């Protein structure tokens, strides 16, 4: 299970970094979302992966560590807020700068000052 989990994290991060380097706001936002998925799963995995172990004492023969789950919840909420902000920011940038490049200047277009 660890190998599968690690491979999934690696794949998510790989896709996230690739999209981030596309330097267009929409792919960058998708990339950031994928990276934040990977990071949240990583944080979750730091409580060790175990099957049939609820984070409540007395519910099963073993217990999972509840703290990483609480941390992940916090990280998800923060990540959600940040994604919402960056979506609005990129919409505004697209309107004000007339293109979707993260530098505000489209290198493929003739640009007149």
């Amino acid at each position: 299970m660890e190998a599968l989990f690690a491979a999934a994290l690696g794949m998510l991060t790989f896709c996230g970094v690739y999209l981030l380097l596309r330097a267009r706001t929409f792919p960058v936002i998708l990339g950031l979302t994928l990276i934040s998925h990977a990071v949240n799963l990583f944080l979750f995995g730091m409580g060790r992966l175990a099957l049939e172990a609820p984070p409540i004492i007395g519910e099963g023969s073993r217990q999972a560590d509840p703290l990483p789950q609480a941390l992940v919840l916090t990280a998800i909420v923060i990540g959600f807020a940040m994604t919402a902000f960056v979506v609005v920011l990129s919409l505004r940038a697209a309107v004000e700068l007339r293109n979707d490049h993260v530098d505000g200047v489209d290198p493929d277009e003739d640009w007149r000052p």
Partner: protein
Amino acid sequence: MNHLLILPVLIPLLAGAFLVVVFVAPLALQRLISLVSTALLVLIALLLFRQVMVGNHVLYTLGNWSPPFGILLVADRLSVLMLLITSALAVFCAMYAGRGDDRKGAHFHALLQFQLAGINGAFLTGDLFNLFVCFEILLIASYALLLHGGGVARCRASLHYVILNLVGSAMFIIGVGILYGVTGTLNMADLAVRVANAPAGDQPLLTAASLLLLVVFGVKAALLPLLFWLPRAYTAASAPVAALFAIMTKVGIYAMLRVFSLIFGLETGLVSTTAWQWLWPLALATLALGGIGVLGATNLRNLTAYMVIVSTGTLLATLALGTREAIGAGLFYLVHSTLMTATFFLLADLIARQRGVAADHMVVAAAMKDHRILGSVYFIGAIAFAGLPPFSGFISKVWILQVAGETGNQTWLWPILLVAGFMILIALSRAGSKFFWRQSGARPHQWRADPARLGVVIAMVLGSAALSMAATPVMTFMLDTADAISAPQHYVEAVEAVALRAMGGL
């Protein structure tokens, strides 16, 4: 329990929330609430200062959960010093913005308060995950503040700033996650003990986590490969926001100092931690780049943004030496540079307001109406920043040079620091002579400087003079603070004492 310690987070949070609710209220009321809240923060910081001078460490356990399980706030000399600088700067920014800059967009004062809540929380927290949460609070407020006033330049700068910091936050969580996975705790004092006693097999993972945290704090502090967002963002921000952002790079530096001296440096000492060894070359390169950038700047705000980079480089290079005197000298420079960079952002705005379309660009334009008073303030500020006697810049620079000489690191630090200082001097004189001496024959504009705005800037410049006049007690305090940083075991003991007391109470 001592509830004073939660107030620096609680007051701005409540004030900010209230300001959001009453956003239709007259601006005068909003300004009053904002000013009262920031003034209260100064008062609380002073009270905490007194307590810390007596007791060294003041602790607050939220919800009475004993460490290492609950959330812990810790005030020691370093965090109280940072609280004091932040709240003083916030008062100046709130006053300056209250003269009209807050009218250019919605919710300025609410955002200011949220930002202060985040910054104060980051200085006070004794828990690594909480540090992350506070960083996020201050960042999301700063994203919105950077955009305050709107416009194309701010939009462009914000995209870089926001995306870079989001990637930084992701790396922060990875670093925290590794630390938790290896040690099973997030309380800083507890982490320090467990990292010191970690088996050799865990060392590579711990080193990786420490380097990830260095990258994260490096983004905030503007360390060399990670600083290219800064000049554009600080140049584009409106004046009071840029002045407040002068403390933001210092939050990154504070976090570095705290995390590497406490968590990774408990057993081995600050200097021998792997991350700290990276700091010296990177800081020197940052300093050199800042010096070049200062010469290349074409307007005063941009010049000041590069002065922020110079100050980061100087500060980190001094701290990288790691001795007690070096940390003391670095802290003195931290206070001085925060104050002076903030002053210059505000001064650039005052100058720009009197020059019409020429703004603060280094071009010849019509004379300013208040060129005498602005020229004098600029002259004193430039002397103070460039490190000429008799102001605080001189004292801090001499102290840094002396420390570098004592530790045998003068070969690299002396030339780079002195040349960077010389470049700042050239750039500031060039800008000043364009602003105040070379005037076009056109009729001067009739705009007068707003007396309140001018008063704020003069008060800040006088702060630099006060810092140099009170240099002896300030330097003694900085050395005591450096002692506390060099002896993190006292911090751990203070936290453990609270934990033991809680167990006895049960």
